[in-house]
């Protein structure tokens, strides 16, 4: 089973898309596969109006922190903002990027944003839609990060 097919079935299982939408996505995958096999074919992968499919995709990244002492922080971030922010990082001047990278490294986050390419960003954001992080610490603090 291809990764795309498994992803669609997962979305169906999680109730993020309806059975009809899943069927259309799977059909679109088949169409894309057939189009890829035929050299020079440039038909769109998804026929018809893609708006319902786009509407079914998660649009927000949620970060929920619940501390044992009663403090709660909920943040709802548009995924489009994440994508724009990542694209912005590719345009930061090299001198500033060096400072950002060294500062992040000092705080234990060794991520070199200068290595991010535009195609990686789209892939990263798409993967982000299916990400779910649940952290339950021993002292009762809870952190949840997910898309919906």
């Amino acid at each position, binding site marked *: 089973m291809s990764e795309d097919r498994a992803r669609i079935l997962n979305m169906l299982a999680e109730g993020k898309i309806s059975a009809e939408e899943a069927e259309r996505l799977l059909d679109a995958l088949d169409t894309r596969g057939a189009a890829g096999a035929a050299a020079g074919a440039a038909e769109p992968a998804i026929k018809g109006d893609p708006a319902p499919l786009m509407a079914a995709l998660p*649009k*927000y990244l949620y970060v929920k922190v619940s501390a044992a*002492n*009663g*403090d*709660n*922080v*909920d*943040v*709802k*971030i*548009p995924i*489009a*903002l994440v*994508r*724009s*922010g990542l*694209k*912005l990082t590719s*345009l*930061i*001047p*090299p001198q500033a990027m060096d400072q950002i990278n060294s500062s992040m490294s000092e705080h234990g986050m060794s991520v070199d944003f200068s290595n991010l390419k535009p195609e990686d960003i789209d892939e990263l954001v798409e993967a982000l839609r299916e990400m779910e992080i649940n952290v339950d610490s021993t002292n009762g603090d809870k952190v949840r990060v997910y898309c919906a």
Partner: protein
Amino acid sequence: MNVPPMILDVRVAPPDRSPVHVWLPLFLLWPLALALGVLAFVLTILADVVLLLLGQRYHHYTVLVFRAFAAMCETRGMVIRVNDGKTAVDVTVQ
């Protein structure tokens, strides 16, 4: 077309006082921001041309300004809720 955030909705609910609900009209700032944006556009174009003529590898300040504006527009819909058990603060970008 990218539309910048228009209203910042702030709600503060202190424990011993009535809640405060403020709508900050960000749209009133946009005429001023537009003037500054035009100035920034001219300056960044000049800077990029100079950097390009000097043979510098990085000459993307104009694109950087546009991307920053686009990122700011995407903040619409962002919600931040903080509650320490006594005081609750909700900030919504609309």
